């Protein structure tokens, strides 16, 4: 998974590449569900694991899939690829 943030004002780019195995695993899913619960999103660790599994399966067929792209009016850009 890659997270790219481009700040147009400070002309700084931030590239974060995370190995999928580190994100899409049972431990990360449990951690994520706990984090989301504490932020008011009700998701069990089982559900988070199912999402992780589904994303993993999709990634196998569609490498570097752009999941989210945000372009702000002032030129900032955020992109999250699978």
């Amino acid at each position, binding site marked *: 998974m890659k997270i790219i943030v481009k700040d147009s004002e400070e002309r700084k780019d931030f590239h974060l590449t995370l190995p999928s195995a580190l994100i899409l695993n049972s431990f990360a899913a449990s951690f994520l569900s706990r984090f989301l619960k504490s932020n008011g999103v009700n*998701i069990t660790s089982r559900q988070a694991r199912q999402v992780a599994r*589904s*994303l993993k399966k*999709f990634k196998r067929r*569609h*490498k570097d899939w*752009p*999941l989210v792209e*945000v372009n702000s009016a002032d030129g900032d850009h955020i992109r999250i690829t699978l």
Partner: protein
Amino acid sequence: MENYTLGKRIAALRREKELKQDELAEMLNVSPQAVSKWENDLSCPDISILPQLAKILGVTVDELLTGKAEIVPVVTALPEEQHKDLSDMILRIVVESSDGDTVKVNLPISLIQTVLESGMEMPQVNGSEMLKSIDISKILELAAKGVVGNLVEVDSADGDKVRIFVE
């Protein structure tokens, strides 16, 4: 794909079409090394190849070169023999705010299916006033029946625009 280089766009579109470099090369009568060079931005495809390349990759030449010409497909009900596998379908949500911000979310339908089947809510969609009333499960039902294209278009009074389409 607007921020991709030409090479990255070719690579991404080729992968979407589940083609290997040598398969694409064969279709275009060029060497696999040439395709590799395009994808690594070491060279560019010959101008005479572009229409055929764009056709194979399922985009227009303009979209291939600029990545900007986003096609908003009209709603189409595909005949049963052309139905895509749900695991290869995408739900795109594009939000354009009145102050010029754009958010694009490309969600695999298989992921949404997992989310809905496990009884989860779609927090991002539920959190938006504009999208609260949209029933994502109905959109999935339509996708399963082969309906693709621009399924939802909402223009809010304050100028925000939301489009949901299935590809």
